[in-house]
């Protein structure tokens, strides 16, 4: 039902833009596309979702293997730093669209492994995946956001290094 409503809105938006397109207003013709956030907003919201997902993975592992807290807390703290800075990049105008609801759960991945080494490997893989996901947005991001994404992605690569090293020492 919600999808129908969205589709109606899209159709309505397209119909509303039609006269402008016919009038040859190329610059305004973009209004005919479905209403969606500007590219930098969607890049930032996607990056926020990536961080929330990682934080959820850390939470799941900490709940399953509390003995890893000393190793994981510092890394988790840095993800909270990532999230805070990404959120600060988003300025939602008054009356603007609310942010997409976060996918802040660890679902969608295999359950957290019970052994310490396997749990560390699980998080290392999650860090690698997050680092790659952020880089995939590099082309669409405005310059300063691209630099922030690359820095956070590099930070996650270093986390994966730490987790992989810790897993080998267990």
């Amino acid at each position, binding site marked *: 039902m919600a999808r129908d409503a969205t589709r109606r809105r899209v159709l309505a938006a397209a119909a509303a833009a039609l006269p402008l397109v016919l009038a040859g207003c190329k610059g305004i013709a973009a209004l005919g596309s479905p209403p969606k956030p500007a590219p930098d907003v969607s890049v930032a919201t996607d990056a926020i979702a990536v961080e929330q997902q990682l934080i959820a993975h850390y939470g799941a592992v900490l709940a399953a293997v509390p003995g890893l807290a*000393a*190793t994981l807390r*510092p*890394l988790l*703290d*840095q993800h909270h*730093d*990532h999230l*805070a*800075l990404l959120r600060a990049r988003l300025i939602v105008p008054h009356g603007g669209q609310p942010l997409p609801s976060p996918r802040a759960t660890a679902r969608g991945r295999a359950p957290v492994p019970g052994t310490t080494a396997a749990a560390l490997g699980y998080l290392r893989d999650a860090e690698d995946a997050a*680092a790659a996901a952020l*880089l995939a947005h*590099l*082309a669409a991001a405005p*310059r*300063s956001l*691209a*630099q*922030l994404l*690359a*820095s*956070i*992605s*590099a*930070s996650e*690569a*270093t*986390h994966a*290094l*730490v987790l992989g*090293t*810790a897993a080998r*020492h267990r």
Partner: protein
Amino acid sequence: MTAAGAAVAALQGALAAENSAVYGYGVAGAHLTGARRAAALRNWVAHQNARDALAAMLAARGAQPVAAAAAYQLPFPVHGAGAAVSLATVLEDRLCAAYLGLVGLADQALRAFGAREARTAALRAAAWRGSTLAFPGLDVPAARPPARASGSAPSSGRPHGSPTPSHPG
């Protein structure tokens, strides 16, 4: 500045950082032994290769690659292994920042190249530092101390600055 001019300036910035790293690793390696000396030597060679690659990229754009200085002013005296590790850390931090300069360009290929090299520098810096940073290469005030890594290279202080040419020009 034109897009081409911005690309050349960012590439020159990365090249200057690589030149300084080649010099700095030569100093650091002399004060290290064993596995850390081997790592310094590996990185020294890697930075010479990166320097040559950047020089070629600049030449391909019709720009004169910035020359290495004969000697560089180190950010702090290096008389032992601890300072040598700190120097290597600073060199990689500085490189990470320089390569993020390429990520700030409009050119997509240079963006991707910069991100890849920034990641490599961040990994080397983390190995030397023995801990990770939330925002490698970016001047973001730290909300909390760097995260400690277990079982990695010994930690070092976080001196600021980097080797600068002692005879500019």
